[in-house]
């Protein structure tokens, strides 16, 4: 379903989803050509979770994210060219090249820190929530992490602390488990987590927890809005598990693009290779959203195509900017590690 927003709000969500999609796809050839190295993790297939969820926040709320952070930063409004420059390790990057993909931050947008250590941010999020509560500034914290984080002891420790101290934090778990091409993730899903459903973990600490379909932008928007309101009302922490189906491009050791995204895929996937076709047909949240927009007559196919064209132009410019940005001077390694 579509979020309960006016037309321009919906189109803005659409634009941001396309922005994430094309940004992420642009990284693959850059990496394969050796323009940047190291591991990187793409948010493709999860856009309908991050974009509507983050749109529910106030401008001064805090967000924490993980190694899979590009989508969150872009959803929040980070400039693609500066994020891309950071991923490339250039001096015009968000972190001046010091962080790279894993650690990109944008404090003015509420991203104080990203961690490449699974579950590293979960205890930190209880800290910003604690501070906001102590300073009475009304800010809430959203902690965005994946299903794997729940295997780390840091997660239950943080849930316990949040619950005991009624901290204003939303734990938003993006479960992109691999199973099947259907929407629902199969029961008994994991070889690495005995608890099922995952919501049992926060519930043990009396944290209200829900499991939702992360591909349904409207459901995400409604659920997160409600949770955020409760947290702002002082009800303490909330937990939402948003389920998506993992993008086939993540199956390989390094990300690969099974088929370049184009809005026309929303109606015709015949050009997509068989292996990936089912995913693009039923599980791609961006295409689902586009179809719904058109069905609900909030946009025409041409409107969508125009948005996409504009996004692609922006991404192409971002790539140019980032590639042209210089590397930091080597001596910079020795500077700025103490305030």
């Amino acid at each position, binding site marked *: 379903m579509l979020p309960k927003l006016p037309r321009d709000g919906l189109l803005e969500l659409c634009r941001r989803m396309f922005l994430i999609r094309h940004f992420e796809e642009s990284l693959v050839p850059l990496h394969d050509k050796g323009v940047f190295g190291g591991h990187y993790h793409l948010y493709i297939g999860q856009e309908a979770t991050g974009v509507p969820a983050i749109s529910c926040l106030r401008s001064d709320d805090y967000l924490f994210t993980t190694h899979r952070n590009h989508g969150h930063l872009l959803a929040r409004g980070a400039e693609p060219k500066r994020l891309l420059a950071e991923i490339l390790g250039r001096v015009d990057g968000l972190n*001046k090249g010091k962080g790279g993909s894993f650690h990109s931050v944008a404090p003015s947008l509420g991203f104080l820190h990203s961690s490449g250590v699974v579950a590293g941010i979960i*205890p930190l999020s209880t*800290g910003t929530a604690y*501070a906001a509560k102590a300073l009475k500034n009304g800010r809430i914290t959203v902690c965005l992490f994946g299903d794997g984080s729940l295997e780390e002891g*840091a997660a239950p420790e943080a849930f316990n*602390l949040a619950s005991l101290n009624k901290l204003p934090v939303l734990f938003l778990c993006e479960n992109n488990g691999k199973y099947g091409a259907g929407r629902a993730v199969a029961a008994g899903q994991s070889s690495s987590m005995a608890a099922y459903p995952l919501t049992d973990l926060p519930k043990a600490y009396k944290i209200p927890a829900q499991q939702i379909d992360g591909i349904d932008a409207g459901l995400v928007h409604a659920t997160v809005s409600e949770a955020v309101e409760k947290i702002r009302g002082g009800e303490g922490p909330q937990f939402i598990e948003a389920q998506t189906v993992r993008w086939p491009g993540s199956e390989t050791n390094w990300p690969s693009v099974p088929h370049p995204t184009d809005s026309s895929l929303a109606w015709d996937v015949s050009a997509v290779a068989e292996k990936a076709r089912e995913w693009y047909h039923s599980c791609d949240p961006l295409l689902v959203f586009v179809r719904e927009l058109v069905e609900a007559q909030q946009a025409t196919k041409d409107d969508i195509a125009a948005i996409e064209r504009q996004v692609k132009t922006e991404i192409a410019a971002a790539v140019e900017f980032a590639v042209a940005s210089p590397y930091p001077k080597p001596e910079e390694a020795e500077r700025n590690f103490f305030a």
Partner: protein
Amino acid sequence: MREIAYYEAKFEALDEIMAADQRVHLINGTFLSLSPHRHVFQNLAKKYGDRMMMPPISELGFCGLATGAAMAGLRPIVDLSTGSFIYEAWPQVANEAANAYSMSGGQTRVPVVFHLFHGLRGGGAAQHSGSPQAMLWNCPGLEIAIPSSPRDVKGLLKTAVASDNPTIFVDHTKLLDLRGEVPENDKPIPFGVADIKRAGSDVTLIATSYTVQVCLRAAEKLAKEKINVEVVDPRTLVPFDLAAILSSIEKTRRVVIADETHQSCGVAAEIAARIAETGFDKLKTRIRRVSTLDVPVSYSPPLEDYIGPSESRIIDAVRASVA
């Protein structure tokens, strides 16, 4: 000048810090350890209870909480209690707090203080006698303060809280009853400034924390043998006042370093390396270290006494350096 106990100076510091800055929160609360004085700490709860949080046994969780709170405008002091327990929180200290400012290109400051009691405490055995400061010195991005006297604990704690960097505050339970001069309205002690605890001319004896006090006793004994020892206390490991040490060595030409971290890659090892690199030509004899032996700390008293940087081992090392 008035003379007060170390634990009183520490309490005063906490009281004054809490009164001066509403952003300071205390997370966990064994700042006066489990000593008989811990009831004194309860007086803080009466005044600042809403800024004091007693967490469950979740070091990883609550050190992460303290770090995150520091990122978001508070200035927390988080207490690990027994120094070895910082190993439970290691990912948050070494991988998050230490790196955040640098990784963000200077955008995210982490003004958190991690407080702990290190060292040989008398029957603590292997898991309660750790001195993690050497390992933490090898983790760039952390400041490390390590007081040895009542005046130092008060002055350094204030600077630690005022610093915008994550700071490890390394204390020692054997210091708590020590009495010393602490002027009223004393100024905070800047980091990176060593202190000559005892002026001398024959040997430079460098030490930190409780070992400084052991060295002062050793120095008194050595004075009777007409060996005049200068005891130098760095007070902070990061930043480190190498200049003060070199200036002392310029005078004495001999150096012994005594420290409670284990010998390999310990605090004494790093200080020795820096002296060797920059002050080699000033030395008349080789550098000598008196560190805790490279063995897990045994429980039994004679074994614990044997492995630490004891007064007798220090005296032997100093005598050897003037022989």
